């Protein structure tokens, strides 16, 4: 489960209380050890807390990595709470994710109330999260590279998805398809069309973002991910600019990406990839688009 990264050269050792650590004591688990392990997990449950800012957190992380017995204990505590340990390292801290049925899991209905009744809203909120991830890690190697930091803007994400939808609309038009959905089967409406017909913005009485607009939905996703310790807000331009944290990369790479992919495969859609990035213009055809102000981190 845990991924021991060998990247802690500047691992400061503050006035280490070096308690009953060490392999010698690893076999005898004391209540104090269990308390420490649970404490470490509780630090992991505060995703915005950085190990560099908290000496106790840093010390417990060090102990996790140096004392296998303690590490197993902390893993067990996490598992018991319905948590999955993604990585324990200096850069990400104790990166844990919630199991599907854990009390810590976020449910769509709690996230946005309208989604319970309205399947279009439910889709849009989910798509916003997926699009944020897709623009934060535009290329497969960005997701694989531990040192990579993605940058997104709310308006950029919206413009990007909208543009993709517009291309699909144009293609449907070229093929002469009537994409207007049948009235009695709204569930058969093409997904892109749901996004395309939702307005991207709207004036409100109190000058806040219109919650039901697509920028409102993407903005909500970005704000929520910031609360989850996955993004850091860096500015207010273009609807809000954000950069990713190592935790987000782990979460998308090890949890969300594969879960969504499994679901897609179950639907019988097999996306073929040769492992190269499709967000860059492919050599043949122009299936894929880049949105203006998407702020994609291109490497010259």
């Amino acid at each position, binding site marked *: 489960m845990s991924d021991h990264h060998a990247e802690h050269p500047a691992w400061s050792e503050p006035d280490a209380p070096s308690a009953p650590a060490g392999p010698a004591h690893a076999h005898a688990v004391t209540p104090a050890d269990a308390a420490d392990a649970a404490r470490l997990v509780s630090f992991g*449950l505060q995703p915005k807390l950085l190990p560099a800012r908290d000496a106790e957190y840093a010390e417990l992380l060090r102990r996790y990595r140096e004392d296998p017995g303690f590490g197993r204990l902390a893993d067990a505590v996490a598992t018991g709470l319905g*948590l999955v340990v993604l990585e324990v390292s200096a850069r990400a801290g104790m990166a844990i*994710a919630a199991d599907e049925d854990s009390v810590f899991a976020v449910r769509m209905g709690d*996230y946005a109330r309208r989604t319970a009744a*309205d399947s279009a809203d*439910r889709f849009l909120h*989910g*798509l916003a*999260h*997926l699009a944020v991830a*897709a623009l934060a*890690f*535009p290329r*497969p*190697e*960005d*997701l*694989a590279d531990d040192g990579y930091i993605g940058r997104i803007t709310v*308006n950029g994400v919206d413009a990007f*998805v909208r543009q993709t939808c517009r291309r*699909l609309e144009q293609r449907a038009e070229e093929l002469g398809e009537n994409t207007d959905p*049948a*009235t*009695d089967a*709204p*569930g058969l409406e*093409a997904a892109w069309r749901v996004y395309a*017909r*939702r*307005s991207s913005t*709207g*004036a409100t009485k109190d000058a806040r973002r219109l919650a039901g*607009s697509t920028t409102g939905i993407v903005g909500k996703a970005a704000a*929520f*991910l910031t609360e*989850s310790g*996955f993004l850091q807000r860096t500015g207010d331009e273009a*609807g809000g600019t954000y950069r990713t944290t190592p935790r987000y990369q782990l979460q998308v790479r090890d*949890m*969300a990406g594969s*879960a*969504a*992919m*499994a*679901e*897609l495969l179950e639907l019988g*859609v097999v*996306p073929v*990839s040769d*492992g190269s*990035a*499709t*967000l860059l*213009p492919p050599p043949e055809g*122009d299936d*894929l688009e*880049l949105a203006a102000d998407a702020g994609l981190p*291109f*490497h*010259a």
Partner: protein
Amino acid sequence: MTLPAPAKTLPSPAPGPAADEGLARRLRALACTAPLHDLDVRKANLAGEYGVYAMAEVALAAIDMVTLNMDFDTGADHEQIVTRLLPRVAAQAPARPAAEHERVVRWVLENLINVGSVDRGFRAIYGTFGPDGAYVRRDYDFKLIEEVLGHGGAVYLRTTDEAVNVLVGALDTDVTSAQIAAEVKLEVLISRGRLADAQLAAEQARYRTVQYAETLRRTLDATRRNVRAVDWLQAVPDMIAEALDHVADRYRHENAILTNIRKARDEAEEPENKRRAAELVDIVKDCIRRHTQLQSRLLDAGPLFRAEQDRQAFAAPAPRSGIDLYGQLVAPLLPLPLERARRVTDAFFASGAGLRTPVSVRVGDLVDILLTPPVEREHLGAEMREPDLIATPDDSRFSEEQLAAATRLLDLPHDAPRRLSGLLAEARRSDPDLPYLVALLAVHAASPAVGTAYRQGEERLLFAVDDGTQLEDAEFGGADLIVGTALLDAAGMAADRAEAA
């Protein structure tokens, strides 16, 4: 009486998809007008007596207004549209209070945006026959005025294609040729003095111009997103060259028209014709402004393409690994039907949104929380300390009285300029310090602030001229300037300024 029906031998119109397609198109076009009719129907439901207002008329005027005020980059400002619509609404019911007029305008605008719906759009239902002959009811979603994000996060209004089509009618024609036609028509009309028709033609020409700009904006936008999406080898360069020619051509053309109408305006006898011509001048000026804007965009297109190509096409190939979130998830997902696509986004959300620690409340705490009186909010903040003000010594070289005396001295009649030497001597008689101030003002007047005076609409301007005479004075040297006052044509300048604006 009845004629033998030849129709019997004719084939009946095919109920298949081909005939249906045209019908569906017309049904959609018809649907776009429904929101306007709906306004007049629903005005009865408003609290108050609103029957006197012609809501569909206000709505059409609003769509006109937004179309004409749409800029290249953003859109029309909401408040500005409201302000400009007010006179029309006020004219419909002059006796009613202004607040009610404004309410009507806002109501119409909000209904055109359809603020009440979550999509901010309209939906019409129509039926078609599918390829298998089955009758299917379909939803047609459209918008008339949409809200878009401008610079700095402000929200602007744009009319959609549907709205423009509703407004101007069959626009499915070549933009360029339609514009040429409109302008030829305009010239003929002006030469015959039929200004009422000329105004209509000019307004139509302006719709075309706006449309043309919009087409171009979209092409450039697409280029910015993906250079490969646009044919930069032939189609776009051709289009840019064509558009530049077009701009140059229109610019000449419209300037000629402008000159003509200005003449017509000044020579017109009837006040009605004079007013029409003046309006026409405004419209043509607006056309010219839009062309200039278009042209600067066209000139930027080449560099934009090269920069985008550098950014998009020459990225280094990278090692392979990881999931391609876009190519393997987003792209295959969007064409799926909503029900299926939702399962994928749900899965991504469930494992990608992160975790939340559930909030647990103890009953003991709850009682405390509920019984705690609310904290009095300090509206005024902390008390300000009385600021300590220190009087700064007045270190001006000249006093107010001296300035007044000098100004009085230099307040010369426009037909009687004086020599500086005389002014200095007169100043010296009253105050030994005054000549310095007079000399200073006179030297300044040698380079009078003509531009400022023009902008501020001054009627008089002090000036000084050197005619080569040496100044003979104990304290000062240099030229014995001729100081005088020039009268400026304030009214003429104001007219010029209005013209230039």
